[in-house]
C-alpha cells in the first residue's frame, strides 16, 4: 500500500513541481500582532463565494431564464424541488454575506493600509472583485422576475441612462432594448452565470496568487509587535483557524436560510404601479437614497440626477487609485487624511443606508462587527502571548 502511494507520488513529482509547492506551503507564515484578526476576512469572503458557485450551479438545473417562466421556475424550486427552498435561500443569504464580508475586508485593508507598495495590484484586483460582486448582486436580483426586482432594475438601468454622452447606449446595452423585458432577463442571466464568473475567476486567481507570493501585510505601527512575536505557520495553524471560521459561517448560513427563507414576492407586472418599499439590495441603498434627495431639473442639458451618479463613479475610481494617491504612508507610515476620508465615507454609507431603511439596524451591525473584531483581536493577542 505504502509502496503504491510512494510510486504515485514519485510519478507526480516527476511531472509537477510538487516538492516546490510543499516547501513553499511549509515555509509560509502569517505575522502575529494586535490586528492579526483582519487577515481572516478575505478568506471569509472567499468561503461565501465558493458557496455561491456551488448553490448557483445547483439552481441552474431548474431555473428557466425567460419572462414567462422565470418566476414560476423559482417558485417550483422553492415549493416542489426537494430542499429547493434551502438551496435558494442559502444562495441569497450567502450572496449578501459575501458582499458584507467583502466590504469588511475592504475596510480593514483600507484602514490598516495594506495597499502599500508592493501590494497595489492586489488592491486593484480586490476592488475589481468588489465591483464584480456588486454586478453579481445587481444581475442576480432580477432573475426571480418579481415586482421588487423588476422595478429596482428599471431604476438601476435608468440611472445608467442618466450618465452624459454614453448613457443612452449603456441603457440599451444593459436592458437589451429600450425597456426592461424578457430580453433584459436573458442578458442578466448571461452576465450572472457566464461573463461575471469568467472575469471573477481571472481576478480572483490573480488576487490569491499575489497574496500567496507577497504574504500578509503588517500594518504600520504593528511592525515592532510582529517582529517580537513568532509568526504563525500558514499551514496548518492559520489554515485551521480559517477553517474554524468557515465552519462557523456555514452554521450561521444554514441557520439564516432555515429560519428566514428568502422571499419570492409577486411576479413582475410591467403594467402595475411600483409599490412602496421598492428598493435595491442593501449595498446599493446609500446611492439609491442619495438619488431621492436630488431635486428635479437640469443644468447645461445634464439632469441633476447625473451629478451624484458621476460623483459615485468618481468615488469608485478614486478607490481604485488609493495606493497611488496615498504617498505619505510610504514615507511616514501614516496617512491621517486617508483615515479621515475613510471614516467620512463609512459614516456616509452607513448613515444613508440607515436613513433609507428608516432603521438603526445598519449602525448596530457595523458596531457589532467592530466589537467582534476587537474581541477576536484580544483572543489572538492572548494566543500569541501563550505561544511566544
Amino acid at each position, binding site marked *: 500500500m505504502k509502496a503504491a502511494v510512494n510510486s504515485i507520488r514519485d510519478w507526480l513529482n516527476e511531472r509537477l513541481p510538487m516538492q516546490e509547492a510543499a516547501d513553499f506551503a511549509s515555509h509560509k507564515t502569517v505575522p502575529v500582532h494586535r490586528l492579526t484578526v483582519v487577515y481572516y476576512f478575505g478568506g471569509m469572503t472567499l468561503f461565501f463565494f465558493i458557496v455561491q458557485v456551488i448553490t448557483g450551479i445547483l439552481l441552474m438545473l431548474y431555473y428557466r431564464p425567460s419572462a414567462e417562466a422565470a418566476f414560476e421556475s423559482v417558485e417550483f424550486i422553492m415549493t416542489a424541488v426537494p430542499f429547493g427552498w434551502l438551496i435558494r435561500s442559502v444562495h441569497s443569504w450567502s450572496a449578501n454575506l459575501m458582499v458584507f464580508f467583502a466590504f469588511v475586508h475592504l475596510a480593514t485593508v483600507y484602514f490598516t493600509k495594506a495597499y502599500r507598495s508592493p501590494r497595489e495590484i492586489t488592491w486593484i484586483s480586490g476592488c475589481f472583485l468588489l465591483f464584480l460582486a456588486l454586478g453579481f448582486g445587481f444581475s442576480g436580483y432580477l432573475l426571480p422576475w418579481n415586482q421588487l426586482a423588476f422595478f429596482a432594475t428599471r431604476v438601476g438601468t435608468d440611472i445608467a441612462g442618466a450618465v452624459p454622452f454614453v448613457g443612452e447606449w449603456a441603457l440599451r446595452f444593459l436592458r437589451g432594448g429600450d425597456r426592461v423585458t424578457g430580453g433584459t432577463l436573458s442578458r442578466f442571466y448571461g452576465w450572472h452565470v457566464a461573463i461575471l464568473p469568467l472575469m471573477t475567476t481571472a481576478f480572483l486567481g490573480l488576487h490569491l496568487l499575489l497574496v500567496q507570493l507577497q504574504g500578509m501585510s503588517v500594518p504600520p505601527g504593528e511592525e515592532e509587535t510582529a517582529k517580537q512575536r513568532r509568526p504563525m505557520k500558514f499551514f496548518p495553524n492559520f489554515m485551521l483557524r480559517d477553517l474554524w471560521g468557515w465552519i462557523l459561517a456555514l452554521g450561521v448560513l444554514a441557520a439564516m436560510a432555515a429560519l428566514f427563507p428568502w422571499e419570492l414576492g409577486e411576479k413582475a407586472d410591467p403594467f402595475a404601479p411600483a*409599490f412602496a418599499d421598492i428598493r435595491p439590495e442593501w449595498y446599493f441603498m446609500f446611492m439609491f437614497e442619495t*438619488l431621492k434627495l436630488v431635486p428635479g431639473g437640469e443644468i447645461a442639458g445634464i439632469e441633476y440626477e447625473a451629478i451624484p451618479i458621476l460623483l459615485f463613479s468618481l468615488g469608485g475610481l478614486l478607490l481604485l487609485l488609493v495606493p497611488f494617491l496615498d504617498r505619505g504612508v510610504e514615507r511616514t507610515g501614516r496617512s491621517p487624511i486617508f483615515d479621515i476620508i475613510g471614516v467620512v465615507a463609512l459614516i456616509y454609507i452607513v448613515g444613508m443606508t440607515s436613513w433609507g431603511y428608516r432603521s438603526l439596524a445598519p449602525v448596530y451591525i457595523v458596531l457589532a462587527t467592530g466589537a467582534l473584531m476587537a474581541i477576536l483581536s484580544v483572543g489572538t493577542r492572548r494566543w500569541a502571548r501563550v505561544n511566544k
Partner: protein
Amino acid sequence: MATSRRLVNWMLGTSVGALLVSTFYPVARFISPPDIPEASTNQVEAGPTNDPELLERGFKIIRFGNEPVILVRVSDSDFRAFAGTCTHLDCIVEFQKDEERLWCNCHNGEYSLQGEVVAGPPPHALEPFKVDLVSKGSGQPQTIVVSRV
C-alpha cells in the same frame, strides 16, 4: 531592400489589424441590441366608466402599445390620463385618492392631477393623454377611450 521590408511589414501589420477589426466589429455590434420599430399606438379603449377597479382605487394602468398609461377617475364625468412612467427613474406611478395626487413610490415623486411636478425628484411633467367618453347606447355605461394628444 528596406522598401520591400517596409511593404511586408505594412501588409502584415494591417492584416493583423484587419483580422482584429473583422473579428471584434461583429461582436461589438452583436452586443448592442437592434432597434425594433414598434407599431405606434394612437388610441386605446380602456373599458367602461363603471369599471370596479376605477371605482375602488380611482385609477388603473392601461396598456398603450408597450407603454403604461395611468387613467385616473377624478369624478363621475372627469377622467384623465397621463403617461404612467415617472420621468425620474422609470418607475410606474399611482393615483392616491385621499391625497389627490399622482405619486411615484420609488423616490417619492409627486405630480398634480394635471400631471405637473409638485415635489420630489422628477425633472419633467407626465405627458398628458386625451380621454373621451363614448356612449354605447342607452342604459349602457360609457366607454373610456384614451388617445394621444
